[in-house]
């Protein structure tokens, strides 16, 4: 039960082992911050890296994310108590008219694993709801997902709405989904796009200027 075993458990997608190891490691006096920064985040980093390399696949990425989530549940109270700050909040959702969420959920998990705090608005999220969430949570990043060529236009609409509400400059807009391309992202005024959940953490950190 140590940083190393927690890292391995997350890497292997073993939620039960992760929980057991985190519990034991905390009990042994290792700080939650240390576990977060030396086990959880590096493990999810490696998962993303292996996915990008084609050595891990979507199921492995998801079960690792679930294992990390399980560990984070136990760490969160300690992190809050210690006043540990995340990289900031990410308000994420699938845009209006679109019900697809698998990719968005994976991205949310990977961003959380990288040290962001996630506010997940779910699916079929109107521009108004995005705006309300941005006003309430003051995120560093707004993430928008669309799977259909018909609904991806709502990404552009939402970005425009953010601008009209005077919020555009306060956030970085990250967009994604199967039909989204770099060209589309640039055209509609997003700040960036990641090809998939495996690379999103790297792109997100790049957007906010974190390592």
């Amino acid at each position, binding site marked *: 039960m140590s940083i190393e075993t927690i890292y391995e458990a997350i890497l292997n997608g073993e939620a039960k082992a992760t929980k057991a190891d985190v519990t034991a490691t905390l009990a042994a006096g290792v700080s939650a911050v240390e576990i977060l920064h030396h086990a959880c985040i590096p493990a999810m980093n490696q998962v993303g890296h292996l996915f990008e390399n084609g050595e891990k*696949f979507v199921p492995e990425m998801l079960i690792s994310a679930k294992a990390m989530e399980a560990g984070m549940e136990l760490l969160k109270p300690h992190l809050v108590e210690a006043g540990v700050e995340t990289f900031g909040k990410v308000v994420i959702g699938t845009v209006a008219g679109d*019900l*697809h969420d698998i990719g968005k959920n994976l991205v949310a998990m990977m961003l959380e694993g990288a040290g962001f705090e996630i506010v997940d608005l779910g699916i079929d999220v109107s521009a108004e709801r995005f705006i309300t969430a941005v006003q309430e949570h003051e995120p560093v990043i707004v993430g928008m997902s669309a799977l259909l060529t018909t609904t991806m236009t709502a990404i552009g609409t939402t970005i425009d709405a953010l601008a009209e509400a005077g919020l555009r400059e306060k956030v970085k807009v990250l967009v994604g989904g199967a*039909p989204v391309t770099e060209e589309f992202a640039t055209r509609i005024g997003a700040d960036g796009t990641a090809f*998939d959940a495996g690379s999103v953490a790297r792109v997100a950190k790049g957007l906010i200027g974190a390592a």
Partner: protein
Amino acid sequence: MNSKQRVTQAFSGAGYDRLPMWYGAEPGTTQNLLNFLELSSVEELDDYLGVDFKTIRPRYIGPELKRYPDGKFDTMWGIRRGGGHWGIALNTPLAHAETIQDVEAYPFPRPEWFDVDFTEADKELSNSYCIIGGMWSPFWHDAMELLGLEKMFIALKFDQALVEAVVDRAFDFYYTVSVQAFEANPGLIDIFWFANDFGTKKNLFIDPRLWRQLFKPKMKKLADLGHQYGLRVAYHSCGDISQIIPDLIEIGIEILNPIQVTAANMDPMVLKHEYGQDLIFFGAIDYNEILSHGSEERVRAEVRRMIDILGYDGKYIVAPSHDLMMPEVPPRNIWALYDEAKKYSSAQVSAASSIA
């Protein structure tokens, strides 16, 4: 030369007048195209475009499946779908299944819910068109939707027996109905075309080793079934399936669809070079960018390019790189695809035979 002969000859590499062509789209897309071309029926459209295939699959005659005012609808799997077009599954019937008994207790679709017999009209079509039949068989997707993605993925790693139980029941259903279809209509079906998407834009969805263990044997059973009844076997998977193409050839797949050229590792030139001896390619006219957003001239240029790359030996069925065109595709571009393919392919064949 009728369509049936055209397809046979093209696949043999000689004696054909142009490459075969296939059309598949959402009803809304077809309506747009009918309006654009000022035609009034799918039959008229097929003839006008020069489509060489008719798809005659077993017909559902089971319990009524509800359609709702908000566009949602129920399926024979006990799933409600919504969210546009074929939509997504809105419920997860086996989300709480823990044991094989839980799976066995679930009301899977029944073979008797399908009428497999060809009508007289079907038999008539079979005289002149190349007939695609059997069940589409997307048992991987059905299993995923019944269990839910998260549960499926966790089970793939930690409880494979549960996954296999669901996949087996879904597979057995499709297999049984397909057998019945081939038994009932001897000599009337030419191609058994079935599907399961295992590719994403880059790489497979699941580890190929897992695919070989859990899904390859089932795909082989389907391929063997087709061959047992003298049919050619066609397989559909979107995305980057480059890693398993050798496996597909090994299990007897002869025709590969839709060749999503914008996915990684699916460069048609590379595929033709590596697998042209073993596969007939079916699709490849880029749907994501060119058909959806390109100019008419760009579509036509791409059709010519693809015919040169994939069709020089006859072993290519011209079609989009996605098997179901959505209504967003400009009808002008769809028309341009088939018009150019017909003109260019005919010209190429004539030129080749005049040299010979």
